[in-house]
Structure formats: structure tokens, C-alpha cells
């Protein structure tokens, strides 16, 4: 029941975002839109509750995780992404590349944690997730510029892929 309500509320908020400006009620919405939104959110909440809230862990029901996720997306993640773009722009202009695929120990236990880490790695400086070792949750990461000395090592820690911020521990607090 709680997972149904949480999923329904989330889809209702998304519906409100997408239809804002349709009328004058409460400043932004029309009455018909609000009614349709409640009905659609109820249906979506019922159908998608098992995907949105993992029935065993119910991580999506803890509000602090949402606050941290938004903070992570606006803060460390956005800055790392900005650095990635400047870095890739520099490599496009100079053509100075030293590519290779390295193994990165993710240290994540859950699917959501591995997914967030893989996506964060893809959007941060010069790294692109190519594959995953499903037994150990290790990631295979293509780096556009492998630093000297890295190529002889067996594996990297996830922290070493990010330049400034400790993104893996943020993700661990959001997803695990």
C-alpha cells in the first residue's frame, strides 16, 4: 500500500510538471487536468509500484534518499559533468589520447547502485562504461586518457575514476 501511494504521488507530480500552464486553477492548472492527473496517477501507481519501490528494500520510501539524490545531481555530479565536457573538448582539439579499458571495483551491492555508478562514470571525465562482471559487480571502463602507470594494475577503486568529488560514497548513501 505504501509503495502504491509513493509511486502514485511521484507520477502525479510528474503529471503536474508536464501540464503546468494549462489553466488558472491554483495559478497554473485547469480542473479537468487535475482530475485526469489523479486518475492517471492512480493507474500508474498500481501498475508500476513493484518497479518503483523494490518490495524487499523499499528504498524509494525514504525521503532522505530523495533529498540526497537531488543534492548529488545538482552538486558533485553536475560539476564532474562540466569538467568532463571541458576535458573532452580539450582532447578533441589537441587529439592527445591514450585509450584503454580498465577494470573498476564498484563495491556496490544493489542493481540500482551499480546502475547509478555506471551512468555517473559515463558522464564524468574521459570515462565510458563498456561492460560489467555480473558475479562481482565490477565495471569495465573505457578511459580516453589512461594515466601513466594505471595500465599495469589489476583493478582500480571506484573513487579513483572521479577527479574531485567522492561520488561512489554519495551513491552508496542514496542507493544502498
Amino acid at each position, binding site marked *: 500500500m505504501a509503495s502504491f501511494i509513493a509511486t502514485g504521488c511521484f507520477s502525479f507530480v510528474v503529471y503536474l*510538471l*508536464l*501540464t*503546468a*500552464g*494549462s*489553466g*488558472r486553477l491554483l495559478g*497554473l492548472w485547469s480542473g479537468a487536468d487535475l482530475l485526469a492527473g489523479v486518475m492517471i496517477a492512480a493507474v500508474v501507481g498500481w501498475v508500476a509500484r513493484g518497479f518503483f519501490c523494490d518490495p524487499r528494500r523499499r528504498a524509494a520510501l525514504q525521503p532522505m534518499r530523495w533529498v540526497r539524490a537531488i543534492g548529488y545531481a545538482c552538486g558533485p555530479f553536475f560539476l564532474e*559533468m*562540466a569538467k*568532463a*565536457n571541458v576535458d*573532452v*573538448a580539450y*582532447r*578533441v*582539439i589537441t*587529439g592527445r*589520447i*591514450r*585509450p*584503454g*579499458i*580498465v*577494470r573498476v571495483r564498484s563495491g556496490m551491492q544493489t542493481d540500482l547502485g551499480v546502475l547509478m555508478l*555506471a*551512468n*555517473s562514470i*559515463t*558522464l564524468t571525465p*574521459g570515462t*565510458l*562504461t*563498456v*561492460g560489467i*562482471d555480473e558475479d562481482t559487480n565490477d565495471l*569495465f571502463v*573505457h578511459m*580516453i586518457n*589512461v594515466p601513466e602507470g*594505471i*595500465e*599495469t594494475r*589489476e*583493478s582500480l577503486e571506484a573513487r579513483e575514476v572521479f577527479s574531485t568529488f567522492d561520488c561512489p560514497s554519495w551513491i552508496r548513501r542514496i542507493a544502498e
Partner: protein
Amino acid sequence: MILNLLIGAAIAIGLFFNALGVFGILRFPDVYTRLHADTKATTFGSIFTSLAVALYALGRLFETADGQYATLLLHTLVAVVVLAITNATGAHAIARAARRRGHSPAQAVVDKLEEPAP
């Protein structure tokens, strides 16, 4: 006036990064390095062009208080969030497909996927 300058600057930066993405595709040696240029440069480029749209919508919203500009602003913000997620996922899917098809990274100094697991 200042708003128009800001919009113009955002469009210029966005187009610059998108153009770098195109140069990267032409210039880099293999599919993996091209994906770097393709996904990262275009994420930033699209964020800045979307920022220009958002600034324009904000300006018009304060001028006219018309609801359609609020719609434009919110839809642009939603598009940016969705773009950031799908860009990474799509790049990973293409890289994985290339890997399974047997493409090795060109000029690679190390390739851990080739080696057996420890």
C-alpha cells in the same frame, strides 16, 4: 537587452560544444573514443541550448504572465534531465554492442576485457 545577450551567449556555447562533438566523431580512431566525444560534448551543448530556451521562457513569463511560457520552461527542464540519463544509458548500450560484436579499442594501452578474470 541583457537577457538577449545571455540567451545569445548560451546558444553560442551550446553550438560550440555540439560542433566539437561532430569534430570528435570525425577525428577519433574507433567507436569507443568517438562515443566519448559524441555523448559528453553533446550533453553540455544541449544543456546550454536548453538554458537559452529556459531563459527566453523566463523573460517572456515575467513580461506577459502567460501560462504557455511556464509550460515551455518546465518542459525544457524535464527534457534536460531525461537527456542526461538517456545519453549515458545509450552510450553504454552502443559500447556494449560494439564489444560483443568483437571491436577492440584502437591504440589501446590496456584492455582488461581481453584478459581472463583473476
